[in-house]
């Protein structure tokens, strides 16, 4: 008897859950096509300071746009969650009016993106003012697929107190990486370097050595330059100058606990470094990353894409997109969050220049980001399988490093992993 009741209760609970998830998906509202009183939904993956700043900007837009446009922000969790939800809703044809997205999110539904070419041509303040790398990235599908919004770069975060004590400068070249790494390992017994993203690290080193990474035909780095770059990377780990993240979640945590002297990661992550833990007080330094024979620095961050088919909503979305990417909004956004401005005019504005001259962690990071901006590249990931390649490369490279494989073995394993995806 009791069993039966329990089973019944269990079934009821499961049903309840189903209903909840079912309701959660129907978030896009339908509104009439009239210009007045248009409500648009914007799916994003911003949290903490980023979400707060986005909300402030949006509140301002809602209050001041004068066209009756209301933007509804919907936080979809982390990037991965946002990506999954976009995929699922693309399949159900219930995409939001607009969303943040990387190009590799949408490879399976490029046809659902609203091309922005006409909007840009007829009603946009200076496309040329947008940083060139982002213009290229947003044109990879053969049309303008989005506007850049929250862009970051990976600078080198380091423990300035420790570097000063040892008389070290942040590494500027590959040789510096080795000499600094050796000193820190010898004097402090900890590694100097970590990389938040293994596949991006590989691409950075390849480019800095004049090698290419990958395109839709497969791996391109099975060359002498590629091998040399991989050999250098493996050496850093083997000698103990760099370490893998392993079972610790984030390098910012290790940095805060002074278990690593520095790391390369997103400039938007600066808020997660704690410099005043008891017994672990230090001054934070941020510098452009070390460069090789060639200069290269990684740029990340999503773009704004439009999905709505309703013409009135498209106009409303465009107004909002213009607002978010305007120089004024970008200055506020960048100062609040640590992202870098997407417009040259925003970079050059008095407010941003003044901010960069300050000595807050955000300002130091912004200076480093600005310092490596000229070498910035956006990896192309518009082709099918780009996402899988990222995961496979990160996994395989980590595996090879942890096993101490040789450079040639590592290159072979990476090439095989990539070609398996592309074939």
């Amino acid at each position: 008897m009791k069993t039966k009741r329990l089973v019944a209760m269990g079934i009821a609970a499961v049903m309840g859950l189903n209903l909840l998830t079912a309701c959660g998906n129907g978030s896009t509202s339908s509104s009439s096509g009239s210009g007045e009183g248009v409500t648009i939904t914007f799916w994003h993956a911003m949290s903490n300071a980023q979400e707060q700043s986005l909300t402030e900007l949006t509140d301002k837009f809602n209050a001041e746009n004068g066209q009756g446009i209301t933007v509804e922000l919907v936080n979809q969790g982390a990037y991965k969650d946002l990506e999954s939800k976009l995929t699922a809703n693309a399949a159900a044809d219930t995409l939001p009016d607009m969303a943040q997205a990387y190009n590799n999110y949408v490879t399976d539904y490029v046809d659902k993106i609203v091309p922005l070419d006409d909007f840009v041509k007829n009603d946009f303040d200076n496309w040329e003012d947008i940083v060139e790398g982002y213009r290229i990235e947003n044109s990879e599908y053969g049309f303008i697929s989005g506007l850049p919004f929250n862009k970051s770069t990976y600078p080198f975060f380091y423990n300035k107190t420790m570097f000063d004590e040892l008389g070290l400068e942040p590494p500027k070249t590959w040789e510096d990486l080795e000499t600094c790494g050796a000193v820190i390992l010898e004097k402090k017994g900890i590694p100097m370097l970590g990389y938040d993203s293994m596949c991006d690290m590989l691409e950075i080193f390849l480019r800095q050595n004049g090698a290419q990474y990958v395109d839709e035909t497969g791996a391109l780095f099975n060359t002498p330059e590629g091998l040399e770059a991989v050999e250098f990377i493996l050496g850093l780990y083997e000698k103990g100058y760099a370490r893998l993240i392993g079972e610790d979640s984030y390098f910012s945590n290790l940095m805060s606990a002074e278990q690593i002297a520095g790391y390369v990661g997103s400039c938007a992550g600066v808020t997660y470094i704690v410099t005043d833990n008891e017994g672990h007080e230090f001054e934070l330094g941020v510098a452009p990353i070390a460069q090789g024979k060639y200069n290269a620095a990684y740029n990340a961050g999503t773009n704004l894409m439009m999905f709505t088919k309703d013409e009135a909503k498209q106009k409303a979305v465009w107004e909002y997109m213009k607002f978010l990417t305007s120089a004024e909004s970008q200055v506020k956004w960048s100062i609040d969050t640590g992202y870098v401005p997407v417009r040259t005019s925003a970079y050059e504005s008095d407010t941003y220049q003044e901010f960069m001259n300050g000595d807050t962690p955000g300002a130091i990071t912004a200076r480093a980001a600005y310092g490596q901006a000229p070498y910035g590249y956006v990896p192309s990931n518009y082709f099918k399988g780009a996402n899988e390649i990222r995961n496979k490369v990160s996994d395989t490279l980590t595996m090879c490093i942890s096993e101490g494989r040789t450079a040639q073995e590592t290159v072979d394993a990476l090439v095989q992993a990539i070609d398996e995806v592309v074939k």
Partner: protein
Amino acid sequence: MKKKSFKGYIYLAPVLIIMLVFTAYPLVRAFIMSFYEDYNAVNGTYSGINIENYRALFASSDFRTALANTTIYVLFVVPLSVIISLLIANLLNSHIKFQGLFQTLYFLPYVTSVIAIGVVWRWILHSQYGLLNGILNFFGIESIGWLTDRRYSMASLIIFAVWKSLAFNIMIFLAALQGISPDLYSAARVDSTPRWRVFFRITVPAMGPIIAYAFIMGIINAFKVYNEVYALFNGAAGPNGYNSAITIVFYIYDQFYNNKKYGIAAAGSVVLFLLIMVFTMIQKLPAKIRARKEAAQK
């Protein structure tokens, strides 16, 4: 008679409709999808109808690892969890002090988010400053790389999962224990039966159906394990790029959302469905045999 059953269907209709839409329809869709080659779930295109997905599935070393891991997981987690929770439930039922407090404590894991629990367990299992290695070191045992050495990934996962699944089992066992007639225990006391004998001869048989229920639910849930892996390895399926703790559902999710191989993901879920079905049928066999025997005796 007929009218009566018609009325019954009306009462059932809401649940039936929900089940048709959210269970039966996806089941059929997934089955069909699993035969589409290069299926694009977003715009519905595919290049052919064949068994290519199944071939790719069984050719994948990750999927074979997932099959093996899931089987190991089911074989260890379910019996361990049932046995341990049976013992704890029995202790909780023996009128100890702070009974209510303990009941709440044991039930906490059930209502806490797996991800939050995962954070705590990642610390417990940390190779350098983890609690578990601290205890091992105290007894002179060397530290183990629970979350860094791929040979221990499954062991860590099983420890974590057993602890996590105790809560639900303890709760239903406690409910069942309180339903056993006290007369039986009084009679045993009169005969001064040893405690272990009371446990095996009265408690366990009286709880037969609920234990069977715990097994069936446990096995079904264990086959679907995903969150535990995700939480323990911080979103990956094992340490240092190895998929040493990958499970079937993890594989399916990865193929669907990360690699966008919808057809292979569908094929994986069909295999999982068949596995669970076979296991559930095997489990129901003893009950059926017993029922047949009883019928024959009458």
